Protein backbone atom coordinates (compact mmCIF):
# COMPACT_ATOMS: atom_id res chain seq x y z
CA UNK A 1 0.00 0.00 0.00
CA UNK A 2 1.41 3.36 -0.90
CA UNK A 3 2.04 5.75 1.96
CA UNK A 4 -0.29 8.67 2.11
CA UNK A 5 1.58 11.97 2.63
CA UNK A 6 -1.29 13.25 4.74
CA UNK A 7 -1.25 10.21 6.96
CA UNK A 8 1.32 11.58 9.41
CA UNK A 9 0.17 9.53 12.39
CA UNK A 10 -0.12 6.31 10.49
CA UNK A 11 1.05 3.19 12.20
CA UNK A 12 3.45 1.41 9.82
CA UNK A 13 2.58 -1.98 11.28
CA UNK A 14 -1.12 -1.35 10.96
CA UNK A 15 -0.70 -0.04 7.43
CA UNK A 16 1.31 -3.09 6.55
CA UNK A 17 -1.38 -5.36 7.88
CA UNK A 18 -4.07 -3.41 6.05
CA UNK A 19 -2.07 -3.59 2.84
CA UNK A 20 -1.67 -7.33 3.33
CA UNK A 21 -5.40 -7.70 3.88
CA UNK A 22 -6.21 -5.75 0.72
CA UNK A 23 -3.75 -7.90 -1.16
CA UNK A 24 -5.30 -11.10 0.19
CA UNK A 25 -8.82 -10.05 -0.70
CA UNK A 26 -8.34 -10.78 -4.35
CA UNK A 27 -11.87 -9.90 -5.27
CA UNK A 28 -14.37 -12.07 -7.05
CA UNK A 29 -13.76 -15.77 -7.32
CA UNK A 30 -13.87 -17.40 -10.77
CA UNK A 31 -17.37 -18.79 -10.23
CA UNK A 32 -18.63 -15.37 -9.12
CA UNK A 33 -17.13 -13.86 -12.22
CA UNK A 34 -18.66 -16.53 -14.43
CA UNK A 35 -22.10 -15.99 -12.90
CA UNK A 36 -21.83 -12.23 -13.36
CA UNK A 37 -20.69 -12.67 -16.95
CA UNK A 38 -23.60 -14.98 -17.71
CA UNK A 39 -26.06 -12.45 -16.36
CA UNK A 40 -24.39 -9.71 -18.36
CA UNK A 41 -24.67 -11.80 -21.50
CA UNK A 42 -28.40 -12.20 -20.98
CA UNK A 43 -28.81 -8.56 -20.08
CA UNK A 44 -27.03 -7.45 -23.24
CA UNK A 45 -29.08 -9.85 -25.34
CA UNK A 46 -32.30 -8.37 -23.99
CA UNK A 47 -30.93 -4.85 -23.59
CA UNK A 48 -32.19 -4.73 -20.01
CA UNK A 49 -30.98 -5.94 -16.61
CA UNK A 50 -31.81 -9.52 -15.73
CA UNK A 51 -32.82 -10.62 -12.24
CA UNK A 52 -30.07 -12.35 -10.32
CA UNK A 53 -30.47 -15.68 -8.64
CA UNK A 54 -30.15 -14.02 -5.27
CA UNK A 55 -33.21 -11.86 -4.70
CA UNK A 56 -32.57 -8.47 -3.22
CA UNK A 57 -33.13 -8.58 0.52
CA UNK A 58 -36.60 -7.36 1.31
CA UNK A 59 -37.04 -4.64 3.79
CA UNK A 60 -38.31 -6.09 7.06
CA UNK A 61 -42.06 -5.63 7.41
CA UNK A 62 -43.23 -3.78 10.48
CA UNK A 63 -44.16 -6.83 12.48
CA UNK A 64 -45.70 -4.94 15.35
CA UNK A 65 -48.14 -3.17 13.03
CA UNK A 66 -49.00 -6.44 11.29
CA UNK A 67 -49.67 -8.11 14.65
CA UNK A 68 -51.87 -5.22 15.81
CA UNK A 69 -53.84 -5.28 12.55
CA UNK A 70 -54.46 -9.01 12.92
CA UNK A 71 -55.51 -8.62 16.54
CA UNK A 72 -57.94 -5.83 15.62
CA UNK A 73 -59.39 -7.99 12.84
CA UNK A 74 -60.01 -10.89 15.21
CA UNK A 75 -61.59 -8.63 17.80
CA UNK A 76 -63.95 -7.16 15.20
CA UNK A 77 -64.89 -10.63 13.98
CA UNK A 78 -65.69 -11.81 17.50
CA UNK A 79 -67.68 -8.66 18.26
CA UNK A 80 -69.83 -9.32 15.20
CA UNK A 81 -70.25 -13.03 15.73
CA UNK A 82 -71.12 -13.22 19.43
CA UNK A 83 -74.45 -11.28 19.33
CA UNK A 84 -75.52 -13.23 16.26
CA UNK A 85 -74.79 -16.54 17.92
CA UNK A 86 -76.66 -15.45 21.03
CA UNK A 87 -79.70 -14.64 18.93
CA UNK A 88 -79.62 -17.97 17.11
CA UNK A 89 -78.97 -20.31 20.03
CA UNK A 90 -80.91 -19.93 23.29
CA UNK A 91 -78.86 -20.25 26.38
CA UNK A 92 -78.78 -23.55 28.27
CA UNK A 93 -80.39 -21.90 31.27
CA UNK A 94 -83.42 -20.85 29.23
CA UNK A 95 -83.73 -24.30 27.70
CA UNK A 96 -83.79 -26.07 31.06
CA UNK A 97 -86.10 -23.63 32.80
CA UNK A 98 -89.02 -24.25 30.44
CA UNK A 99 -89.80 -27.01 28.04
CA UNK A 100 -91.30 -24.53 25.67
CA UNK A 101 -89.12 -25.39 22.68
CA UNK A 102 -89.99 -29.08 22.89
CA UNK A 103 -93.71 -28.40 23.48
CA UNK A 104 -93.70 -26.03 20.52
CA UNK A 105 -92.19 -28.74 18.40
CA UNK A 106 -94.95 -31.22 19.16
CA UNK A 107 -97.64 -28.58 18.74
CA UNK A 108 -96.29 -27.63 15.33
CA UNK A 109 -96.21 -31.31 14.38
CA UNK A 110 -99.89 -31.57 15.23
CA UNK A 111 -100.66 -28.41 13.27
CA UNK A 112 -98.77 -29.80 10.29
CA UNK A 113 -100.71 -33.03 10.29
CA UNK A 114 -103.95 -31.13 10.58
CA UNK A 115 -103.07 -28.99 7.58
CA UNK A 116 -101.99 -32.04 5.63
CA UNK A 117 -105.37 -33.69 6.12
CA UNK A 118 -107.13 -30.55 4.90
CA UNK A 119 -104.95 -30.21 1.79
CA UNK A 120 -105.21 -33.85 0.79
CA UNK A 121 -108.96 -33.59 1.05
CA UNK A 122 -108.95 -30.51 -1.21
CA UNK A 123 -106.56 -31.83 -3.86
CA UNK A 124 -108.20 -35.23 -4.30
CA UNK A 125 -111.92 -34.65 -3.97
CA UNK A 126 -112.85 -37.83 -5.85
CA UNK A 127 -111.10 -40.15 -3.51
CA UNK A 128 -112.83 -41.63 -0.54
CA UNK A 129 -112.41 -39.38 2.46
CA UNK A 130 -109.23 -39.94 4.32
CA UNK A 131 -109.44 -41.01 7.86
CA UNK A 132 -108.03 -37.77 9.01
CA UNK A 133 -109.83 -35.29 11.05
CA UNK A 134 -109.62 -31.97 9.24
CA UNK A 135 -109.81 -30.01 12.44
CA UNK A 136 -108.05 -32.19 15.00
CA UNK A 137 -105.04 -34.42 14.68
CA UNK A 138 -105.82 -38.08 14.59
CA UNK A 139 -104.87 -39.33 17.99
CA UNK A 140 -103.98 -42.82 16.79
CA UNK A 141 -101.71 -41.42 14.13
CA UNK A 142 -99.96 -39.30 16.68
CA UNK A 143 -99.72 -42.26 19.02
CA UNK A 144 -98.09 -44.34 16.30
CA UNK A 145 -95.72 -41.58 15.30
CA UNK A 146 -94.71 -40.93 18.85
CA UNK A 147 -94.49 -44.58 19.87
CA UNK A 148 -90.68 -44.59 19.82
CA UNK A 149 -90.70 -41.61 22.12
CA UNK A 150 -93.17 -43.22 24.44
CA UNK A 151 -91.00 -46.30 24.56
CA UNK A 152 -88.45 -44.22 26.31
CA UNK A 153 -90.61 -44.63 29.39
CA UNK A 154 -89.33 -42.60 32.26
CA UNK A 155 -87.47 -40.30 29.95
CA UNK A 156 -90.70 -38.87 28.56
CA UNK A 157 -91.13 -35.21 29.30
CA UNK A 158 -93.52 -34.13 31.99
CA UNK A 159 -95.95 -32.55 29.53
CA UNK A 160 -96.47 -35.76 27.48
CA UNK A 161 -99.58 -37.29 29.24
CA UNK A 162 -101.51 -34.04 29.12
CA UNK A 163 -100.93 -33.62 25.38
CA UNK A 164 -101.88 -37.28 24.81
CA UNK A 165 -105.11 -36.91 26.67
CA UNK A 166 -105.90 -33.58 24.93
CA UNK A 167 -105.41 -35.21 21.52
CA UNK A 168 -107.86 -37.92 22.38
Amino acid at each position, binding site marked *: *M*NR*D*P*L*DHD*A*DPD*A*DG*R*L*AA*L*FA*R*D*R*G*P*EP*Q*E*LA*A*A*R*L*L*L*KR*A*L*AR*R*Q*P*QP*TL*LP*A*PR*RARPRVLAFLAQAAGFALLIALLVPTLRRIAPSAATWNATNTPRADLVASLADGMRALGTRVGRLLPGLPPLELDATLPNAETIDRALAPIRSLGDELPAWWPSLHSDAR
Partner: protein
Amino acid sequence: MIHAMTVPAKPSAAATDADEVRAFLAGDESAFERLVDRHQRRILHLCQRLAGVNDANDLFQDVFLQCYRALPQLRAPEAFHGWLLQITVRRARRRAQARRGPIGVPEPEQFTAPPEGDPLELADEVARLRKALARLPPRQREVIALRHDQELSFAEIAAVLDLREDAARANHYQGLKRLRRELLGDDDREATRP
Protein backbone atom coordinates in the same frame (compact mmCIF):
# COMPACT_ATOMS: atom_id res chain seq x y z
CA MET B 1 -21.37 -9.98 -30.08
CA ILE B 2 -24.16 -11.25 -27.92
CA HIS B 3 -24.12 -14.86 -29.07
CA ALA B 4 -20.39 -15.20 -28.78
CA MET B 5 -20.10 -13.90 -25.24
CA THR B 6 -19.94 -17.30 -23.55
CA VAL B 7 -16.51 -17.74 -25.07
CA PRO B 8 -14.38 -14.81 -23.98
CA ALA B 9 -12.94 -12.97 -26.90
CA LYS B 10 -9.20 -12.98 -27.12
CA PRO B 11 -8.00 -9.44 -26.64
CA SER B 12 -5.20 -8.31 -28.77
CA ALA B 13 -2.18 -7.75 -26.58
CA ALA B 14 -1.23 -4.62 -28.45
CA ALA B 15 -4.72 -3.13 -28.63
CA THR B 16 -5.44 -0.50 -26.00
CA ASP B 17 -8.83 0.38 -24.56
CA ALA B 18 -8.96 3.30 -26.96
CA ASP B 19 -8.34 0.96 -29.91
CA GLU B 20 -11.15 -1.31 -28.81
CA VAL B 21 -13.51 1.62 -28.29
CA ARG B 22 -12.75 2.91 -31.76
CA ALA B 23 -13.25 -0.58 -33.19
CA PHE B 24 -16.60 -0.86 -31.43
CA LEU B 25 -17.65 2.55 -32.71
CA ALA B 26 -16.63 1.43 -36.18
CA GLY B 27 -19.07 -1.47 -35.92
CA ASP B 28 -16.94 -4.26 -34.45
CA GLU B 29 -19.23 -5.60 -31.74
CA SER B 30 -16.65 -8.12 -30.56
CA ALA B 31 -14.53 -5.19 -29.42
CA PHE B 32 -17.03 -4.64 -26.62
CA GLU B 33 -16.54 -8.24 -25.54
CA ARG B 34 -12.84 -7.65 -25.35
CA LEU B 35 -13.39 -4.55 -23.27
CA VAL B 36 -15.61 -6.54 -20.90
CA ASP B 37 -13.01 -9.30 -20.70
CA ARG B 38 -10.33 -6.83 -19.88
CA HIS B 39 -12.19 -4.96 -17.14
CA GLN B 40 -14.76 -7.40 -15.77
CA ARG B 41 -12.75 -8.66 -12.82
CA ARG B 42 -11.82 -5.24 -11.49
CA ILE B 43 -15.28 -3.83 -12.10
CA LEU B 44 -16.96 -6.75 -10.32
CA HIS B 45 -14.53 -6.29 -7.45
CA LEU B 46 -15.45 -2.62 -7.25
CA CYS B 47 -19.15 -3.55 -7.43
CA GLN B 48 -18.69 -5.91 -4.49
CA ARG B 49 -16.94 -3.20 -2.52
CA LEU B 50 -19.53 -0.52 -3.23
CA ALA B 51 -22.76 -2.50 -3.30
CA GLY B 52 -21.97 -5.64 -1.31
CA VAL B 53 -21.72 -9.16 -2.63
CA ASN B 54 -25.47 -9.68 -2.85
CA ASP B 55 -26.07 -6.71 -5.13
CA ALA B 56 -22.78 -6.83 -6.99
CA ASN B 57 -24.07 -8.88 -9.93
CA ASP B 58 -26.99 -6.53 -10.45
CA LEU B 59 -24.70 -3.54 -10.34
CA PHE B 60 -22.20 -5.25 -12.64
CA GLN B 61 -24.68 -5.84 -15.43
CA ASP B 62 -26.17 -2.40 -14.87
CA VAL B 63 -22.73 -0.85 -15.35
CA PHE B 64 -21.87 -2.66 -18.56
CA LEU B 65 -25.36 -2.16 -19.99
CA GLN B 66 -25.00 1.56 -19.39
CA CYS B 67 -21.50 1.42 -20.86
CA TYR B 68 -22.80 -0.34 -23.97
CA ARG B 69 -25.55 2.22 -24.46
CA ALA B 70 -23.41 5.29 -23.78
CA LEU B 71 -20.20 4.24 -25.47
CA PRO B 72 -21.04 6.07 -28.70
CA GLN B 73 -21.12 9.31 -26.69
CA LEU B 74 -17.65 8.81 -25.19
CA ARG B 75 -15.60 11.64 -26.65
CA ALA B 76 -12.17 10.56 -25.39
CA PRO B 77 -11.64 6.82 -25.98
CA GLU B 78 -8.36 7.06 -24.06
CA ALA B 79 -10.35 7.81 -20.91
CA PHE B 80 -12.41 4.62 -21.15
CA HIS B 81 -11.19 3.06 -17.91
CA GLY B 82 -11.86 6.17 -15.81
CA TRP B 83 -15.21 6.62 -17.53
CA LEU B 84 -16.17 3.01 -16.71
CA LEU B 85 -15.18 3.51 -13.07
CA GLN B 86 -17.22 6.70 -12.99
CA ILE B 87 -20.27 4.82 -14.30
CA THR B 88 -19.74 2.16 -11.62
CA VAL B 89 -19.53 4.67 -8.79
CA ARG B 90 -22.55 6.64 -9.97
CA ARG B 91 -24.68 3.55 -10.51
CA ALA B 92 -23.67 2.24 -7.08
CA ARG B 93 -24.69 5.52 -5.49
CA ARG B 94 -28.03 5.44 -7.26
CA ARG B 95 -28.71 1.90 -6.11
CA ALA B 96 -27.66 2.77 -2.56
CA GLN B 97 -30.09 5.69 -2.53
CA ALA B 98 -32.88 3.43 -3.73
CA ARG B 99 -32.04 0.75 -1.20
CA ARG B 100 -31.34 3.00 1.80
CA GLY B 101 -29.89 0.15 3.78
CA PRO B 102 -26.49 -1.18 4.73
CA ILE B 103 -24.66 -3.04 2.03
CA GLY B 104 -24.67 -6.80 2.33
CA VAL B 105 -21.44 -8.46 3.30
CA PRO B 106 -21.46 -12.26 3.56
CA GLU B 107 -20.11 -14.19 6.48
CA PRO B 108 -16.86 -16.08 5.87
CA GLU B 109 -18.68 -19.40 5.46
CA GLN B 110 -20.70 -17.87 2.63
CA PHE B 111 -17.66 -17.16 0.53
CA THR B 112 -17.73 -19.14 -2.65
CA ALA B 113 -14.17 -20.35 -2.12
CA PRO B 114 -11.64 -19.61 0.57
CA PRO B 115 -8.58 -17.66 -0.47
CA GLU B 116 -5.30 -19.48 -0.70
CA GLY B 117 -3.16 -19.96 2.36
CA ASP B 118 -4.71 -20.79 5.69
CA PRO B 119 -8.32 -20.87 4.48
CA LEU B 120 -10.18 -20.33 7.72
CA GLU B 121 -7.96 -17.64 9.17
CA LEU B 122 -7.64 -15.82 5.89
CA ALA B 123 -11.34 -15.98 5.11
CA ASP B 124 -12.05 -14.55 8.54
CA GLU B 125 -9.58 -11.71 8.05
CA VAL B 126 -10.96 -10.88 4.63
CA ALA B 127 -14.49 -10.97 6.01
CA ARG B 128 -13.51 -8.52 8.72
CA LEU B 129 -11.96 -6.23 6.16
CA ARG B 130 -15.08 -6.34 4.01
CA LYS B 131 -17.32 -5.66 6.96
CA ALA B 132 -15.19 -2.78 8.12
CA LEU B 133 -15.22 -1.35 4.59
CA ALA B 134 -18.98 -1.74 4.40
CA ARG B 135 -19.35 0.34 7.55
CA LEU B 136 -17.37 3.25 6.15
CA PRO B 137 -19.17 6.34 4.86
CA PRO B 138 -19.80 5.91 1.12
CA ARG B 139 -17.29 8.52 -0.03
CA GLN B 140 -14.47 7.07 2.09
CA ARG B 141 -15.31 3.58 0.88
CA GLU B 142 -15.20 4.76 -2.73
CA VAL B 143 -11.84 6.43 -2.29
CA ILE B 144 -10.28 3.47 -0.50
CA ALA B 145 -11.62 0.97 -3.03
CA LEU B 146 -10.33 3.05 -5.92
CA ARG B 147 -6.98 3.56 -4.21
CA HIS B 148 -6.26 0.04 -2.97
CA ASP B 149 -8.25 -2.26 -5.27
CA GLN B 150 -8.06 -0.25 -8.48
CA GLU B 151 -4.64 1.25 -7.64
CA LEU B 152 -5.51 4.72 -8.91
CA SER B 153 -3.57 7.83 -8.07
CA PHE B 154 -5.28 10.54 -6.06
CA ALA B 155 -5.52 12.66 -9.19
CA GLU B 156 -7.33 9.83 -10.97
CA ILE B 157 -9.58 9.23 -7.96
CA ALA B 158 -10.44 12.91 -7.88
CA ALA B 159 -11.37 12.79 -11.57
CA VAL B 160 -13.53 9.68 -11.17
CA LEU B 161 -15.34 10.97 -8.11
CA ASP B 162 -15.50 14.57 -9.34
CA LEU B 163 -13.62 15.77 -6.24
CA ARG B 164 -10.65 17.95 -5.57
CA GLU B 165 -7.49 15.97 -5.09
CA ASP B 166 -7.01 17.13 -1.51
CA ALA B 167 -10.57 16.05 -0.73
CA ALA B 168 -9.77 12.61 -2.10
CA ARG B 169 -6.66 12.48 0.11
CA ALA B 170 -8.63 13.60 3.15
CA ASN B 171 -11.29 10.96 2.58
CA HIS B 172 -8.58 8.36 2.16
CA TYR B 173 -6.94 9.46 5.40
CA GLN B 174 -10.18 9.38 7.36
CA GLY B 175 -11.18 6.06 5.88
CA LEU B 176 -7.87 4.41 6.68
CA LYS B 177 -7.95 5.80 10.19
CA ARG B 178 -11.38 4.33 10.73
CA LEU B 179 -10.38 1.00 9.21
CA ARG B 180 -7.36 0.80 11.48
CA ARG B 181 -9.51 1.58 14.49
CA GLU B 182 -12.15 -1.01 13.58
CA LEU B 183 -9.76 -3.78 12.63
CA LEU B 184 -7.25 -3.18 15.41
CA GLY B 185 -10.05 -2.64 17.88
CA ASP B 186 -11.27 -6.11 17.02
CA ASP B 187 -7.76 -7.42 17.56
CA ASP B 188 -7.50 -5.73 20.93
CA ARG B 189 -10.76 -7.25 22.08
CA GLU B 190 -9.65 -10.68 20.95
CA ALA B 191 -6.31 -10.28 22.67
CA THR B 192 -7.95 -9.46 26.00
CA ARG B 193 -10.26 -12.46 25.93
CA PRO B 194 -9.43 -15.09 28.59
